[in-house]
């Protein structure tokens, strides 16, 4: 099985680096209408809901007194926002029909035809940018908790 996958990857690599025409068809991850697209969106929605429940649980529980509590709560808010952004971003991406891409390789440019294309471009940036502070705050919050416990033990 591993050999077959390796062979497939090996065969595909030359194709990956092959130059393609200047006005390429936009390769969307999914297009709206496939079952996978709905499953993915619902998964984001579920993740978003779970984050909100977790925030509520954090406030309700005994974690409020812990150092790092605020960082964890903020991390959860950012993750919730990220999910919202992802749902919106996916919807924009999957409904973007035949965007015009000019140039080749890393110098490719997207023709900003309308508001839809602008919003798509914006959500592509925020999609990943939100994740970094979320993970950083989660790390800081948990590290503060661990430091408190380790200080208590020593």
């Amino acid at each position, binding site marked *: 099985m591993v050999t077959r996958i390796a062979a*497939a990857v090996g065969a595909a690599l030359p194709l990956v680096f092959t130059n393609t025409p200047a006005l390429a068809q936009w390769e969307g991850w999914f297009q709206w209408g496939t079952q996978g697209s709905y499953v*993915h969106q619902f*998964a984001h929605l579920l*993740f978003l809901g779970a984050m909100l429940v977790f925030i509520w649980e954090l406030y309700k529980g005994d974690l409020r007194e812990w150092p790092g509590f605020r960082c964890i709560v903020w991390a959860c808010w950012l993750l919730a926002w990220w999910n919202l952004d992802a749902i919106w971003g996916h919807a924009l991406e999957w409904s973007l029909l035949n965007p015009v891409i000019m140039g080749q390789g*890393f110098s490719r440019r997207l023709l900003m035809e309308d508001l839809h294309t602008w919003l798509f471009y914006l959500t592509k940036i925020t999609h990943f940018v939100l994740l970094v502070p979320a*993970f950083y705050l989660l790390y800081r919050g*948990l590290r503060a908790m661990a430091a408190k416990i380790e200080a208590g033990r020593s």
Partner: protein
Amino acid sequence: MMTLPLFPLWLVESLSAILVLFLAFQVFQVTRRLMNQDPENALWLFFNWLATLLMIFACSHGVSHFVQEFLTFHGATPFLTHLRRAIGGLDSVLYVGLASIILFFHRVQRLYRRMEEDHHHLEKTSHEILALNREMEALVMERTMSEMALGIAHGIRNPLHIIGGFSHRLLKKTDKSDPTRAWLAAIAEEAKRIEQMVERFETLAQRKSSFFSQEDLNQIIRTTLELITPEIRLKKLNLVTDLTSTPLVGRLNPHLLKVAFAHLLRNAIEATRAKGTITVRTTMDGQFAVLTIKDTGKGMPPDVVERVFVPFFTTKLGGTGLGMVFVRQIVDEHRGIITLESKVGRGTTVTIRLPLRFAEAPGVSEPQPTPAAASNHGI
């Protein structure tokens, strides 16, 4: 028309993906540290699971977007398109997994809070039992000391009077020059010292009244019912009280009796279904005040009735099995008798007989008990 480069998107996504992966690994490491500190802590376990899934998510999400951008810049191949879809599917599964862990944690937290509440309740009950036990021990010790003091007083005082009296009489009759006069004086003096000791023992016997005082049993029951009535109403039970019109005054400890009655009433409430009846009745039977607490509850089989007063025997989930033991001890300390009759499906009747032989009307000051009287009463 304006065009924007796609390269910054790729740059932002790639850098962010690397940073997220690095931070996810750091989060995982911290949660592992927390787990190592306290492996049985549900919260750390949850964070560890969450961090594990977030790390997998950081990998798959990063790869997924990296592949997507590759397709954007270099065009699609069937393999990469399928790979991206597969990783997209994995991402969906991971989101569901993350949500499941968080929602499961929500349930675990609820259970944990319930466990903590139960723990606090048990701790509180344990403290109450400890306090009650201390009170009972003090009471028993006091009683023992009183009985000992009165026994010594009774046994020593009479011969001591004789020794003291005769030594004084001999002293008067003996000539001043007689050498035995000094011996007789020593005997009289020592007899007096023993007499003082006896008086101190008697004082101890009198202090017993701090635990038992002249109280009306009906009043103790009324006060207990005031406390318990909200619980009876909450369960929609009928309470029938039939107390004697005249006060049932005896040497009682109201605090301990309230604890005992409250326990019996709570047992009755617990055993009786809604719209059932709990009857509290007092009667006078010769020199005994009789209290009956009857319920129309589920009752108990004979083997349970036999073991009701056995320490640590309980049929309740989370019960200590000490409640009824204390009830009997409290009744015993009042020189009373407790009996229990029960029939499955019919209910349970608890009868307590308390002696009121030394009763006086309330408000009358207590006379100092004479050693002889105390001995006769068997205090």
